[in-house]
């Protein structure tokens, strides 16, 4: 049992050593392959030689597989200054790309003295070189590269183990390469005779990739840059807000806010006008219409009679008040057909079939004459025509019109009465509303009524008050004014009473004004239209 245990132990130790050696061999082979690749790129002369330690030297050269010979065809002869020549044994190894490498390794060397190297192939010199071994060092990369935090913003501390070469620790220089992870643009810093370096000026909260390589400084010893170490990653400390920057930002924000408020306050009225424009309301013109009667204009009119008279501005618009004067009395004859009305008035009345028929009974000549006349001169010309050619007129057609018209009746009163009293107290005014006709000007055309000679009280009567379609006969004290409504403006033309008398049974449109409006006749909101 004891012997079995001992054998097992030996076997175990052998396996461990073999595995370690195999690992070491594998690792060494990889390192050698890396160095060979480096020198093939960095050294133009042949053979390429490098020293890894204090007393070794490795030389090699490369040849194409096709022309390469066996190792025994080559001889490597080296000679130190003032010494005899020696020969190094050659080893051949296959390489990538159809190449073959030939190696010579010396295990005992002399530094600080020239070394001559000659390579022969079948006694033919193929390579010749003289070098100092202390000038061809190719070291292994530093080991144990570690990144740590320094406790300060934007810094990392890199530390490593230098190659363990006696006498050369203070002759080593290092190159530290660092970049943000994922970036190909980085920085490089050099440090001599040290095993750590603090990287400064890094971004906070960022992951950095660091690697390092080593080389002798070239004063006593020199050589080639080693291979880079495997990169090491580490993230820097997260950044804190600079208190000064925060305070300055707050102050600036406060100042800007105050300035904005000042500007807004200084222009608040202008801004309010732009943002919330005041909607015009006629409430000031119609006292109590909205607040008391809720917008019911008919009811407001019915309850504000005195108010109307107290506010003569109700009758007024931007236009000057037009005096309305009754010029003469004319007894009404048979009513004219509705087609005898001015063209605008005809349109306002609406075209009905009955009226059209009546139109046909009108003297075509007369009608034609009427239609040709411009509206603004209709009154005088038409009246003349009427005087010359009195047309049949039916009261029924007149009254059947759905349009509204106003008649004025002058009553006999004493002349002594002042006009103002008549105006404000004794002038009943009735306005009839037309359906479907808008004429804001009509309303405004309600001018003041003035009494002319001999006229006293004026009263108004609605055409609807004469269901029998007969006009009341008036006394001789009437004066009339012809009014032409073009739809845009109204033309008031005084008519002499004589002419009116002459017209006789001609077409006379009387305006009857009353201050009461039949409620059933007046739809709410319909405008006033005057037809003459």
């Amino acid at each position, binding site marked *: 049992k004891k012997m079995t245990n001992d054998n097992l132990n030996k076997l175990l130790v052998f396996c461990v050593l073999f595995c370690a050696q195999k690992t070491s061999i594998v690792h060494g082979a990889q390192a050698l392959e890396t160095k060979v690749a480096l020198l093939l790129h960095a050294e133009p002369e042949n053979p390429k030689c490098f020293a890894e330690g204090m*007393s070794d030297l490795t030389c090699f050269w490369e040849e194409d597989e096709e022309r390469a010979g066996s190792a025994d065809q080559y001889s490597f002869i080296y000679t*130190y200054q*003032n010494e005899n020549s020696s020969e190094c044994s050659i080893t051949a190894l296959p390489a990538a790309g159809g190449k073959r490498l030939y190696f010579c390794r010396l295990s*005992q060397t002399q530094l*600080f*003295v020239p070394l001559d190297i000659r390579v022969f192939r079948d006694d033919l010199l193929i390579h010749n070189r003289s070098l100092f071994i202390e000038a061809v060092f190719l070291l292994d990369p530093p080991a144990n590269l570690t990144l740590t935090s320094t406790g300060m913003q934007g810094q990392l501390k890199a530390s490593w183990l230098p190659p363990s070469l006696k006498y050369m620790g203070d002759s080593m220089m290092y190159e530290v390469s660092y970049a943000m992870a994922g970036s190909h643009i980085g920085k490089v810093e050099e440090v001599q005779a040290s095993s750590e370096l603090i990287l400064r000026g890094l971004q906070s909260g960022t992951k950095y990739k660091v690697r390092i390589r080593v080389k002798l400084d070239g*004063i*006593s010893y020199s050589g080639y840059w080693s291979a880079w170490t495997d990169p090491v990653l580490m993230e820097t400390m997260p950044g804190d807000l600079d208190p000064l920057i925060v305070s300055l930002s707050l102050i600036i924000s406060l100042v800007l806010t105050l300035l904005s408020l000042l500007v807004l306050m200084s222009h608040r009225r202008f801004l309010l006008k732009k943002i919330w424009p005041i909607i015009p309301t006629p409430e000031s013109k119609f006292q109590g219409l909205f607040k008391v009667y809720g917008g019911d204009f008919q009811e407001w009119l019915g309850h504000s009679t005195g108010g109307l008279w107290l506010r003569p501005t109700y009758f007024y618009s931007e236009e000057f008040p037009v005096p309305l004067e009754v010029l003469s009395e004319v007894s009404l004859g048979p009513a004219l057909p509705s087609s005898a009305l001015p063209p605008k008035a005809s349109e306002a009345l609406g075209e009905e079939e009955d009226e059209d028929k009546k139109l046909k009974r009108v003297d075509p000549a007369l009608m034609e004459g009427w239609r040709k006349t411009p509206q603004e001169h209709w009154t005088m010309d038409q009246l003349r025509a009427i005087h010359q050619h009195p047309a049949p007129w039916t009261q029924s057609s007149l009254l059947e019109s759905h349009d509204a018209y106003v008649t004025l009746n002058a009553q006999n009163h004493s002349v002594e009465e002042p006009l103002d009293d008549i105006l404000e107290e004794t002038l009943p005014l009735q306005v009839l509303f037309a359906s479907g006709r808008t004429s804001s000007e009509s309303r405004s055309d309600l001018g003041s009524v003035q009494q002319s000679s001999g006229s006293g009280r004026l009263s108004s009567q609605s055409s609807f008050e004469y269901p029998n379609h007969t006009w009341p006969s008036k006394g001789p004290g009437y004066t009339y004014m012809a009014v032409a409504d073009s739809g845009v403006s109204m033309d008031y033309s005084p008519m002499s009473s004589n002419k009116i008398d002459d017209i006789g049974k001609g077409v006379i449109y009387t305006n009857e004004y009353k201050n009461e409006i039949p409620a059933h006749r007046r739809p709410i909101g319909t405008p006033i239209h005057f037809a003459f």
Partner: protein
Amino acid sequence: MCVCVCPRAGLPSPVRPICDPRVLDRFIMEARDTETALRGCKAGCGVTGTFVVPLTNVDFVVWETKDTEEQALEVQSGMSLFGQALGAVRESVSRVAVQILIDNNKSNIHSLGQVLRSLHIQDLPLPPAPAVGDLVTRKVSSLSELLHVHTNFLRGKVRLLLTNAPACQQNST
């Protein structure tokens, strides 16, 4: 650079060991600069004759078998040979620029002796001048080769001696 130690009257004051490798590095660089500057000197800058110089090769395995005194002796004898050779060169050069460079190197050799003294490497009685053909010397026949050997000697044996001087090892630990 000149390292001077001024002896006072009475007992000599102890000198602090000079262990900074940059001191010797400066000597090495100036020797190399002189070698480079005079490499292209025509006709050897007018220098003729032969000069005995020490061997510069260092076998670390062999070197480490020597003790400090043996190493020091080898270094001091070699520095003495270089001093004598540069003195002879100074006599034979006529160009002022060359004279300045040679004088600088001679001054550095003297300063290096002071550095060795600071490391308690006492001046050992030099053995009789080694003859040509000894294993420790060889002969050169040009100024450029003399300066080249001088540089190699400083970079090798002198530096190894100073780097591993016991006085400096005690300061670093």
